[in-house]
């Protein structure tokens, strides 16, 4: 009985920890403006995240404190020029108080990626990784492919122009922060594992980029995302230091419809500091009697130091129903990144969260150390 209780408790702690900080690798939008204008400056994917291109590898080496060969397995495993391999391993350990106080250590991400360039501007991208098992089918779902898609690119070998993608990926929306607990990801339409099957048309230029994605829920298994919909985002870089954008998403499931409209902005300040903002208004239509209108916002200030160190201060705001008092949440985030080598990042991340600034329920928070190893 005691053993069963201990196992249940450990399972609960692991689930809590995964909920808190489980992650998948996306772009570091903190590097935009100061280094490259677009995600494709460093990534193969037009939406950012995953495999780094040649410039991305050079950036990883350039910013790291002890720059090592940035290629896959330090370049010791040669691949043809048309094939690029990579991966991400992440784990974390720390203290959580939500409000129960726990010490937790847990894996977050074990994923590998491959991209093969094909003739006529086509490429195939496949991701394979480990994830929690599906209930009742434990043996079948330890290994899965969160992302797999075919891309046609107008200008192969370049990082601008027209892209068309078809397959399984996250609908392109929002600022695409790395950390999925950020409110605009968790509450803002791109929560963890919300990848769907979709068709995206994306146009990217240094001055402007636009993405529109039509998507359907995964028909092959019961993933956490149950909606079909369409998402669109466009960003215009007014100057090299300032951009503004607009976004919208419509999703429909068996039980509800969600309409989101929002704005994004980035402003590069002196001393290698970047401000990023995303705000969304969401109308959720549950049934004729329920239509909560929500606000989701996030403001992050990032300062690059040295440049192997990056510090982020984030402010999150989520109001699950603006018509009702004391349903707002506030998050105060602090992240400290150390890019030790081209492959190793150490991240100290902390959050203090309030409900209606302390009057709507118990406060919560966490302080975690995350180790990220890029293959």
């Amino acid at each position, binding site marked *: 009985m005691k053993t069963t209780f201990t196992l249940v408790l450990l399972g609960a702690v692991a689930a809590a920890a995964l909920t808190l900080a489980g992650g998948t690798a996306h772009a570091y939008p903190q590097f935009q403006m100061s280094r490259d204008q677009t995600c494709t400056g460093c990534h193969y994917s037009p939406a950012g995240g995953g495999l780094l291109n040649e410039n991305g590898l050079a950036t990883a080496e350039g910013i790291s404190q002890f720059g090592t060969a940035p290629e896959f397995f330090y370049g010791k495993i040669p691949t043809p020029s048309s094939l690029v391999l990579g991966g991400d391993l992440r784990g974390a350990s720390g203290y959580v108080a*939500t409000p*129960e106080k726990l010490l937790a250590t847990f894996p977050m991400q074990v994923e590998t990626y491959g991209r093969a360039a094909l003739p006529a501007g086509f490429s195939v991208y496949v991701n394979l990784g480990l994830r929690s098992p599906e209930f009742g089918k434990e043996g079948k779902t330890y290994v899965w492919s969160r992302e797999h898609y075919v891309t046609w690119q107008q200008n192969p070998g370049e990082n601008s122009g027209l892209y068309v993608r078809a397959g399984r990926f996250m609908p392109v929306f929002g600022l695409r922060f790395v950390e999925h607990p950020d409110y605009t990801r968790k509450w803002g339409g791109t929560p*963890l594992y919300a990848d769907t099957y979709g068709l995206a048309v994306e146009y990217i230029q240094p001055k402007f980029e636009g993405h529109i994605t039509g998507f359907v829920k995964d028909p092959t298994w019961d993933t956490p995302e149950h909606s079909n919909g369409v998402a669109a985002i466009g960003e215009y870089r007014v100057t090299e230091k300032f951009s*503004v954008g607009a976004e919208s998403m419509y999703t429909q499931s068996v039980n509800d419809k969600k309409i989101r409209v929002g704005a994004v902005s980035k402003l590069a300040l002196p001393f290698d500091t970047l401000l990023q903002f995303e705000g969304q208004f969401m109308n959720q239509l549950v049934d004729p009697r329920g239509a909560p*209108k929500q606000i989701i*916002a996030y403001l992050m200030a990032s300062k690059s130091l040295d440049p192997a160190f990056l510090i982020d201060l984030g402010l999150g705001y989520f109001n*699950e129903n603006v*018509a009702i008092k004391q349903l707002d949440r506030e998050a105060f985030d602090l992240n400290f990144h150390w890019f030790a080598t081209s492959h190793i990042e150490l991240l100290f991340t902390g959050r203090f969260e309030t409900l209606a600034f302390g009057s709507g*329920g118990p406060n919560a928070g966490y302080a975690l150390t995350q180790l990220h190893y890029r293959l």
Partner: protein
Amino acid sequence: MHRLVLVGAIALAACTQTDNDRPATLEYVTEAILQPSCGQYDCHSSFARTKGYAFDTVAEAKQSLGRIVIPTDPDASLLYVVLTRQIKRMPYDSPLPDKDIALIRTWITDGAPGLGLDIP
């Protein structure tokens, strides 16, 4: 500019806020409260079904809640107990607002309409 618009929207919303007159229905409690806070990815989704419970769709929630709700008796309902207790309180990652818990209590007190359970 859009930050000013957002601040304005929040301020306007704050001026017209009411106390807690939301519908205490299975559909509303599931889609507006349980799904976003409890039914995500590795927790109580249809996929992971932690501890056997799923709250990410109304159909799944109906089945799961039927095992942890005693109509008209919130204090004896496991759902209400795990949302309010001090040890192993749910959700683990961030607590629910008191107003959401109060709405769930109202729904249970009203007989948990939608679950199709007999009122004791």
